[in-house]
């Protein structure tokens, strides 16, 4: 996944603001990159643009080699379901569905057959350590468990890029650490790259790369401590997503 000179305007008329002012960055398979910056710096807007939820006003975004410029809404949706998994700060699980069905939704929107989708969803939940809670509803799960269900939902479709928006913000230290450990493990898999938007310094030890954004511009990039622990990221020679 890469962005070159991305510009994004938000709002209209007098309220129009330039949230991104020419951002370039890339996310590689096998790395866990942190995107850090103060509130209003453009982190979430950049995440939305990289995640094909918002179209850039200028510049180019490529996902798995495909440029998103001029793609229609439905084409962007297809890119998302085929290549991108999301983890949200508030989990955004469906309260009326079980953990299994919440994960299965990511495959159902692709039109995957029910039998296969159920099997893959169970595998994904097992991967995040919730094999025993597949029939639990979100209200029956702790915050950490809910976030793990959300991670399973992001993983189940074999997304090349996992984009996480403040995944630990709603969790206590222990659960936050557990979630980051899980994302770190996922990033070890050369099939996935993980980009985490955060301003939580406790996450820093997990990062293989730290990208700093301020006022809509990338102001710095440095290798993280996690790089030493993720061989694939360390090599950085793998293909861009």
């Amino acid at each position, binding site marked *: 996944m890469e962005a070159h000179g991305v510009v994004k305007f938000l709002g209209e008329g007098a309220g129009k603001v330039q949230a991104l002012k020419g951002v370039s960055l890339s996310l590689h398979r096998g790395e866990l990159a942190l995107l850090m910056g103060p509130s209003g710096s453009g982190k*979430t807007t950049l995440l939305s643009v990289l995640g094909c939820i918002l179209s850039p006003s200028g510049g180019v975004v490529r996902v798995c080699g495909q440029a998103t410029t001029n793609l229609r809404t439905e084409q962007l949706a297809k890119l998302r379901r085929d290549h991108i998994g999301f983890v949200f700060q508030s989990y955004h699980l469906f309260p009326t569905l079980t953990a299994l069905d919440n994960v299965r939704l990511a495959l159902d929107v692709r039109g995957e057959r029910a039998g296969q989708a159920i099997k893959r969803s169970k595998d994904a939940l097992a991967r995040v350590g919730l094999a025993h809670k597949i029939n639990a509803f979100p209200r029956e799960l702790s915050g950490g468990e809910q976030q793990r269900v959300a991670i399973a939902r992001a993983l189940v479709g074999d997304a090349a890029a996992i984009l996480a928006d403040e995944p630990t913000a709603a969790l206590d230290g222990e659960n936050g650490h557990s979630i980051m450990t899980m994302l770190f493990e996922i990033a070890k898999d050369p099939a996935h790259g993980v980009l985490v938007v955060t301003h939580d310094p406790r996450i820093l030890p997990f990062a293989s790369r730290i990208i700093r954004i301020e006022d809509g511009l990338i102001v710095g990039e440095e290798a993280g401590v996690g790089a030493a622990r993720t061989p694939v990221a360390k090599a950085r020679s793998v293909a861009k997503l």
Partner: protein
Amino acid sequence: MAMPLVLKLAARNLLYDKLRFAATVVGIVFSIVLVTVQLGLFVSFARTVTVMIDHAPADLWIVPLGTKCFEDPSLLDEGDRYRALSIEGVSEVVPILISFAQWRMPDGGTSPVLVVGSDLRAGGLLPWNLVGGSLDALWIPESVAVDRTYFDRLGVKGLGDAAEMRDRKAEIRAVTNGIRSFTTTPFVFTPLDRARGYTGTPRTKVTYLLVHLAPHTDVERVRAQLWTVLTKAEALTPGEFSSRSRSFWLFGTGAGAALFAGALLAMIVGSVVVAQTLYSSTKEHLYEFATLRAIGSSGAYLHTVIIAQALLSAVTGFSIALVIGLLIVNVTTESALPVVMTPALTGILFLLTVVMCVVSALSSILKVMRMDPAMVFSR
């Protein structure tokens, strides 16, 4: 087989707020029961309007020129009967008289009635569905047949009771069941000559002539010849006469339009209720729809969730409305204004319910289409 996940999501979303779902269903039930009554009355009226024409054993009707409906009080010259009989292929022409009269009850009150006079021997317009007395009894002087639905209106209790029309005694010697009049004016069957007496109609006048044809006779040929020999009358097939009567009563008088307008209003009320509740449900679940969009669902998938909610509401509401509708049908069967339910009408009502609910879902679909999926990052 397990329920598809998209339907499961729709059903669970719908039932998440049971009170709102109940409000939706009540709105649909209210609307569809009203539509059922309006359309059921329409079907009932459409049947009642032509009940006499449908039961008269005629190949052709000779009616006064410009007759609008069966109850039209215009008269024919009985000489037309002989003109019709002169045409090859016409085997019999039976005169009948339809005219209003005042029924003076035993207690002194009066009620308008529609006297149906016909030759009792063959091919006339005779009472049917007899539940008391007999047709033969109408040969007895001063005998009449009435429908039991109208006993109260006529101030009688049954066989043997008597009243007066134009100071002539009318004794009930036959009772029918279910021969209702669209105008709710009771029919009184009696032989032709006696009907003339009850209504003050000259002996040379009749209202209609029922034409019977010999086997294998070309109806259109006879009809064309009738047009040439009749001057102030016209020849209609039973179908044409039924259609003309229906058009007059249901559309010419505005009665049908009023029923349809009532049904339309009920539909609008139902649509607004369903639209409002579906919209508020969609609004409440907007973050879930945004999440679905963010994880890559197509627009069609989101629409399926909303339409499925609308259809589930429709099926639930229709099922309850159907039970209530059948109860109303059952309760009104014996009344002067029965609500009729036919399999075709049931199908139409179901389709209307589905259309109403799906149309109501449009505002929700628009809401979801205009939603910004980036809102998933805002909380």
